[in-house]
Protein backbone atom coordinates (compact mmCIF):
# COMPACT_ATOMS: atom_id res chain seq x y z
CA UNK A 1 0.00 0.00 0.00
CA UNK A 2 1.03 3.65 -0.31
CA UNK A 3 1.90 5.35 2.97
CA UNK A 4 2.80 9.06 2.92
CA UNK A 5 3.53 8.75 -0.77
CA UNK A 6 5.83 5.72 -0.46
CA UNK A 7 5.07 2.18 -1.57
CA UNK A 8 5.34 -0.19 1.42
CA UNK A 9 4.77 -3.89 2.01
CA UNK A 10 2.74 -5.19 4.96
CA UNK A 11 1.12 -8.45 6.05
CA UNK A 12 -2.44 -9.06 4.87
CA UNK A 13 -5.09 -8.21 7.43
CA UNK A 14 -3.15 -5.54 9.28
CA UNK A 15 -5.34 -2.82 10.81
CA UNK A 16 -4.48 0.86 11.33
CA UNK A 17 -3.67 0.40 15.02
CA UNK A 18 -1.20 -2.41 14.29
CA UNK A 19 0.39 -0.39 11.52
CA UNK A 20 0.93 2.58 13.85
CA UNK A 21 2.60 0.21 16.36
CA UNK A 22 4.97 -1.02 13.65
CA UNK A 23 5.98 2.59 13.00
CA UNK A 24 6.30 3.17 16.74
CA UNK A 25 3.63 5.89 16.61
CA UNK A 26 1.12 6.65 19.35
CA UNK A 27 -2.52 6.51 18.26
CA UNK A 28 -3.13 9.60 20.42
CA UNK A 29 -0.69 11.81 18.51
CA UNK A 30 -1.60 11.13 14.90
CA UNK A 31 -4.08 12.26 12.29
CA UNK A 32 -4.78 9.44 9.83
CA UNK A 33 -6.24 9.88 6.37
CA UNK A 34 -7.27 6.73 4.52
CA UNK A 35 -8.20 7.14 0.86
CA UNK A 36 -8.83 10.87 1.39
CA UNK A 37 -11.02 10.36 4.48
CA UNK A 38 -9.90 11.30 8.01
CA UNK A 39 -10.32 8.35 10.39
CA UNK A 40 -11.18 8.97 14.07
CA UNK A 41 -8.89 7.03 16.43
CA UNK A 42 -11.80 4.97 17.82
CA UNK A 43 -11.88 3.19 14.44
CA UNK A 44 -8.14 2.46 14.16
CA UNK A 45 -8.50 -1.13 15.44
CA UNK A 46 -11.51 -1.87 13.28
CA UNK A 47 -10.22 -0.83 9.89
CA UNK A 48 -8.25 -3.51 8.08
CA UNK A 49 -5.98 -2.19 5.36
CA UNK A 50 -5.59 -3.64 1.91
CA UNK A 51 -3.04 -3.21 -0.82
CA UNK A 52 -4.95 -0.63 -2.87
CA UNK A 53 -5.14 1.73 0.10
CA UNK A 54 -3.55 5.13 0.17
CA UNK A 55 -2.71 6.22 3.68
CA UNK A 56 -1.43 9.53 5.04
CA UNK A 57 -0.20 9.63 8.62
CA UNK A 58 0.55 12.98 10.26
CA UNK A 59 2.32 12.51 13.58
CA UNK A 60 2.38 15.53 15.88
CA UNK A 61 5.34 16.39 18.08
CA UNK A 62 5.04 18.58 21.18
CA UNK A 63 5.78 22.30 21.30
CA UNK A 64 3.94 25.54 20.81
Amino acid sequence: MIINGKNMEFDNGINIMELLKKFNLSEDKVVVELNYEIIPKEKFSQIVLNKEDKLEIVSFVGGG
Partner: protein
Amino acid sequence: MNVFVNEKSIEIENNETAYMVRERIKKDADIVVLNGFIINEDKMLKENDKLSLIKRGEIPSEEDLEGFLVSRHTPGIHEKLKKASVGIAGLGGLGSNVAVSLARIGVGKLILVDFDVVEPSNLNRQQYFIRHIGMKKTEALKEILKEINPFIKIETKDVYLDKSNVKSIFSDVDIIVEAFDNPKCKAEITTTVLTQMEDKIVVAASGMAGYFSNNTIVTKKVTDRFYLIGDDISEAKIGCGLMAPRVAIAANHQANTVMRLILGEMDV
Protein backbone atom coordinates in the same frame (compact mmCIF):
# COMPACT_ATOMS: atom_id res chain seq x y z
CA MET B 1 -13.30 61.36 -10.10
CA ASN B 2 -13.43 59.48 -6.84
CA VAL B 3 -10.46 58.67 -4.59
CA PHE B 4 -10.22 57.55 -0.99
CA VAL B 5 -8.40 59.76 1.48
CA ASN B 6 -7.92 58.19 4.91
CA GLU B 7 -10.51 55.56 3.80
CA LYS B 8 -13.14 58.23 3.08
CA SER B 9 -14.45 58.72 -0.42
CA ILE B 10 -13.90 62.20 -1.92
CA GLU B 11 -14.33 63.78 -5.35
CA ILE B 12 -11.28 65.38 -7.01
CA GLU B 13 -10.48 66.86 -10.41
CA ASN B 14 -9.15 64.47 -13.05
CA ASN B 15 -5.64 65.91 -13.18
CA GLU B 16 -4.98 66.20 -9.45
CA THR B 17 -1.91 64.74 -7.80
CA ALA B 18 -1.28 63.25 -4.37
CA TYR B 19 0.51 66.37 -3.15
CA MET B 20 -2.28 68.65 -4.41
CA VAL B 21 -4.78 66.67 -2.34
CA ARG B 22 -2.43 66.82 0.65
CA GLU B 23 -2.20 70.60 0.29
CA ARG B 24 -5.99 70.84 0.41
CA ILE B 25 -6.81 68.30 3.15
CA LYS B 26 -3.84 67.91 5.46
CA LYS B 27 -0.99 70.29 4.73
CA ASP B 28 1.23 69.12 7.58
CA ALA B 29 1.12 65.43 6.62
CA ASP B 30 4.71 64.24 6.24
CA ILE B 31 3.85 60.63 5.39
CA VAL B 32 1.90 60.10 2.18
CA VAL B 33 0.85 56.52 1.52
CA LEU B 34 -0.52 55.75 -1.96
CA ASN B 35 -2.14 52.33 -2.45
CA GLY B 36 -0.14 50.77 0.37
CA PHE B 37 3.23 52.36 -0.40
CA ILE B 38 4.90 55.47 1.05
CA ILE B 39 5.68 57.88 -1.79
CA ASN B 40 8.53 60.37 -1.75
CA GLU B 41 7.65 62.18 -4.97
CA ASP B 42 4.36 63.47 -6.27
CA LYS B 43 2.14 61.08 -8.24
CA MET B 44 -0.88 61.64 -10.47
CA LEU B 45 -4.00 60.11 -8.91
CA LYS B 46 -6.25 57.61 -10.64
CA GLU B 47 -9.88 56.67 -10.04
CA ASN B 48 -10.37 54.84 -6.68
CA ASP B 49 -6.77 55.33 -5.54
CA LYS B 50 -6.25 55.11 -1.79
CA LEU B 51 -4.32 57.88 -0.15
CA SER B 52 -3.41 58.20 3.54
CA LEU B 53 -2.11 61.51 4.87
CA ILE B 54 -0.32 61.01 8.16
CA LYS B 55 1.50 63.47 10.39
CA ARG B 56 4.37 61.67 12.05
CA GLY B 57 3.90 61.35 15.81
CA GLU B 58 0.38 62.76 15.89
CA ILE B 59 -2.26 60.63 17.60
CA PRO B 60 -5.10 60.55 15.06
CA SER B 61 -8.80 60.77 15.80
CA GLU B 62 -10.47 57.41 16.28
CA GLU B 63 -12.28 58.02 13.01
CA ASP B 64 -9.00 58.29 11.07
CA LEU B 65 -7.08 55.67 13.05
CA GLU B 66 -8.59 52.57 11.48
CA GLY B 67 -7.76 53.83 8.00
CA PHE B 68 -4.19 54.65 9.02
CA LEU B 69 -3.73 51.21 10.61
CA VAL B 70 -4.32 49.56 7.27
CA SER B 71 -2.79 52.22 5.03
CA ARG B 72 0.25 50.01 4.31
CA HIS B 73 -1.95 47.03 3.38
CA THR B 74 -2.10 45.87 -0.20
CA PRO B 75 -5.23 47.71 -1.48
CA GLY B 76 -8.56 45.90 -1.44
CA ILE B 77 -7.79 43.33 1.23
CA HIS B 78 -8.85 45.23 4.36
CA GLU B 79 -12.55 44.76 3.63
CA LYS B 80 -12.08 40.99 3.16
CA LEU B 81 -9.97 40.58 6.30
CA LYS B 82 -12.48 42.57 8.32
CA LYS B 83 -15.27 40.13 7.43
CA ALA B 84 -13.28 37.07 8.52
CA SER B 85 -13.53 35.23 11.81
CA VAL B 86 -10.71 33.04 13.16
CA GLY B 87 -10.57 30.74 16.18
CA ILE B 88 -7.26 30.29 18.00
CA ALA B 89 -6.91 27.12 20.07
CA GLY B 90 -4.20 27.75 22.66
CA LEU B 91 -2.57 31.10 23.49
CA GLY B 92 1.05 30.11 24.04
CA GLY B 93 4.04 30.69 21.77
CA LEU B 94 2.08 29.88 18.63
CA GLY B 95 -1.34 31.26 19.52
CA SER B 96 -0.23 34.57 21.03
CA ASN B 97 1.99 35.31 18.01
CA VAL B 98 -0.71 34.30 15.52
CA ALA B 99 -3.22 36.51 17.35
CA VAL B 100 -0.92 39.54 17.30
CA SER B 101 -0.28 39.20 13.56
CA LEU B 102 -3.97 38.70 12.76
CA ALA B 103 -4.92 41.68 14.94
CA ARG B 104 -2.31 43.86 13.22
CA ILE B 105 -3.74 43.06 9.79
CA GLY B 106 -7.29 43.67 11.04
CA VAL B 107 -8.94 40.24 10.89
CA GLY B 108 -12.45 41.24 11.99
CA LYS B 109 -13.09 38.72 14.72
CA LEU B 110 -10.84 36.50 16.83
CA ILE B 111 -12.02 33.87 19.29
CA LEU B 112 -9.19 33.23 21.76
CA VAL B 113 -9.26 30.03 23.82
CA ASP B 114 -6.97 28.98 26.66
CA PHE B 115 -7.47 27.82 30.26
CA ASP B 116 -4.05 28.82 31.59
CA VAL B 117 -2.46 31.84 33.28
CA VAL B 118 0.70 33.68 32.22
CA GLU B 119 3.81 32.49 34.06
CA PRO B 120 7.44 33.64 33.84
CA SER B 121 8.68 30.79 31.60
CA ASN B 122 6.19 31.90 28.93
CA LEU B 123 8.00 35.18 28.34
CA ASN B 124 10.87 33.68 26.28
CA ARG B 125 8.52 33.20 23.32
CA GLN B 126 4.98 34.35 24.06
CA GLN B 127 3.65 37.87 23.49
CA TYR B 128 3.00 38.66 27.17
CA PHE B 129 4.69 41.18 29.48
CA ILE B 130 5.95 40.89 33.02
CA ARG B 131 2.88 42.75 34.24
CA HIS B 132 0.70 39.89 32.94
CA ILE B 133 2.22 37.18 35.18
CA GLY B 134 -0.63 35.50 37.04
CA MET B 135 -3.28 36.87 34.69
CA LYS B 136 -5.47 34.63 32.52
CA LYS B 137 -3.87 34.34 29.08
CA THR B 138 -7.24 35.16 27.49
CA GLU B 139 -7.48 38.45 29.40
CA ALA B 140 -3.81 39.37 28.99
CA LEU B 141 -3.85 38.77 25.24
CA LYS B 142 -7.12 40.65 24.80
CA GLU B 143 -5.54 43.63 26.54
CA ILE B 144 -2.49 43.51 24.22
CA LEU B 145 -4.59 43.15 21.07
CA LYS B 146 -6.84 46.08 22.03
CA GLU B 147 -3.74 48.25 22.29
CA ILE B 148 -2.65 47.17 18.81
CA ASN B 149 -5.99 47.34 17.00
CA PRO B 150 -9.12 48.46 18.85
CA PHE B 151 -11.28 47.94 15.76
CA ILE B 152 -11.42 44.13 15.80
CA LYS B 153 -13.88 42.03 17.80
CA ILE B 154 -12.30 39.75 20.37
CA GLU B 155 -14.11 36.95 22.15
CA THR B 156 -12.34 35.00 24.87
CA LYS B 157 -13.07 31.57 26.33
CA ASP B 158 -11.28 30.62 29.49
CA VAL B 159 -11.80 26.87 29.08
CA TYR B 160 -9.90 23.66 28.35
CA LEU B 161 -10.65 23.12 24.68
CA ASP B 162 -11.10 19.52 23.54
CA LYS B 163 -13.29 17.38 21.31
CA SER B 164 -16.27 17.85 23.64
CA ASN B 165 -16.57 21.64 23.22
CA VAL B 166 -14.67 22.64 20.06
CA LYS B 167 -17.78 22.38 17.88
CA SER B 168 -19.80 24.84 19.94
CA ILE B 169 -16.95 27.27 20.70
CA PHE B 170 -15.78 27.55 17.10
CA SER B 171 -19.16 27.09 15.38
CA ASP B 172 -19.07 30.56 13.74
CA VAL B 173 -15.43 30.89 12.69
CA ASP B 174 -14.10 30.42 9.15
CA ILE B 175 -10.69 29.02 10.09
CA ILE B 176 -9.31 27.31 13.20
CA VAL B 177 -5.67 27.72 14.24
CA GLU B 178 -4.35 24.74 16.21
CA ALA B 179 -1.80 26.30 18.57
CA PHE B 180 -1.48 23.81 21.41
CA ASP B 181 1.70 22.56 23.03
CA ASN B 182 0.67 18.98 23.78
CA PRO B 183 0.82 16.61 20.76
CA LYS B 184 -2.21 14.61 21.92
CA CYS B 185 -4.30 17.79 22.10
CA LYS B 186 -3.00 18.83 18.66
CA ALA B 187 -4.07 15.50 17.13
CA GLU B 188 -7.42 15.43 18.92
CA ILE B 189 -8.51 18.92 17.91
CA THR B 190 -7.30 18.50 14.33
CA THR B 191 -9.08 15.17 13.89
CA THR B 192 -12.28 16.53 15.45
CA VAL B 193 -12.36 19.57 13.17
CA LEU B 194 -11.68 17.44 10.10
CA THR B 195 -14.26 14.76 10.89
CA GLN B 196 -17.03 16.75 12.57
CA MET B 197 -16.81 20.38 11.39
CA GLU B 198 -16.97 20.01 7.65
CA ASP B 199 -17.11 23.69 6.76
CA LYS B 200 -13.94 24.60 8.70
CA ILE B 201 -10.29 24.71 7.71
CA VAL B 202 -7.65 23.86 10.33
CA VAL B 203 -4.14 25.36 10.29
CA ALA B 204 -1.98 23.28 12.65
CA ALA B 205 1.70 23.23 13.65
CA SER B 206 4.15 20.50 14.56
CA GLY B 207 7.92 20.76 15.01
CA MET B 208 9.34 24.21 15.90
CA ALA B 209 11.53 23.56 18.96
CA GLY B 210 15.22 24.42 19.28
CA TYR B 211 17.43 26.64 17.16
CA PHE B 212 17.64 24.45 14.07
CA SER B 213 17.59 25.97 10.60
CA ASN B 214 14.95 28.53 9.72
CA ASN B 215 14.46 26.85 6.42
CA THR B 216 13.20 23.47 7.58
CA ILE B 217 9.96 25.07 8.79
CA VAL B 218 7.50 24.73 5.92
CA THR B 219 3.78 24.93 5.24
CA LYS B 220 2.14 21.82 3.78
CA LYS B 221 -1.36 21.35 2.46
CA VAL B 222 -2.26 17.87 3.74
CA THR B 223 -5.89 18.02 2.54
CA ASP B 224 -8.16 20.80 1.25
CA ARG B 225 -9.08 21.61 4.85
CA PHE B 226 -5.85 20.74 6.69
CA TYR B 227 -2.68 22.84 6.52
CA LEU B 228 0.35 21.83 8.59
CA ILE B 229 3.29 24.02 9.53
CA GLY B 230 6.64 23.06 11.04
CA ASP B 231 9.63 20.83 10.44
CA ASP B 232 7.67 17.69 11.50
CA ILE B 233 10.39 16.47 13.87
CA SER B 234 11.76 19.11 16.29
CA GLU B 235 9.99 18.16 19.46
CA ALA B 236 10.06 20.14 22.69
CA LYS B 237 11.66 17.73 25.16
CA ILE B 238 14.30 17.46 27.87
CA GLY B 239 17.38 19.10 26.37
CA CYS B 240 15.50 20.86 23.55
CA GLY B 241 13.62 24.03 24.43
CA LEU B 242 11.17 26.33 22.73
CA MET B 243 12.34 29.84 21.91
CA ALA B 244 10.85 32.97 20.41
CA PRO B 245 12.49 33.04 16.98
CA ARG B 246 11.60 29.60 15.68
CA VAL B 247 8.20 29.46 17.41
CA ALA B 248 7.36 32.86 15.91
CA ILE B 249 8.52 31.69 12.46
CA ALA B 250 6.05 28.79 12.69
CA ALA B 251 3.32 31.02 14.15
CA ASN B 252 3.67 33.49 11.32
CA HIS B 253 3.58 30.69 8.76
CA GLN B 254 0.21 29.93 10.38
CA ALA B 255 -0.88 33.59 10.34
CA ASN B 256 0.12 34.07 6.70
CA THR B 257 -1.67 30.83 5.77
CA VAL B 258 -4.80 32.14 7.49
CA MET B 259 -4.52 35.45 5.61
CA ARG B 260 -4.00 33.67 2.27
CA LEU B 261 -7.03 31.44 2.90
CA ILE B 262 -9.21 34.46 3.76
CA LEU B 263 -8.08 36.07 0.51
CA GLY B 264 -8.88 32.94 -1.50
CA GLU B 265 -5.31 31.72 -2.02
CA MET B 266 -5.73 28.01 -1.31
CA ASP B 267 -2.28 26.81 -2.42
CA VAL B 268 0.79 26.87 -0.21
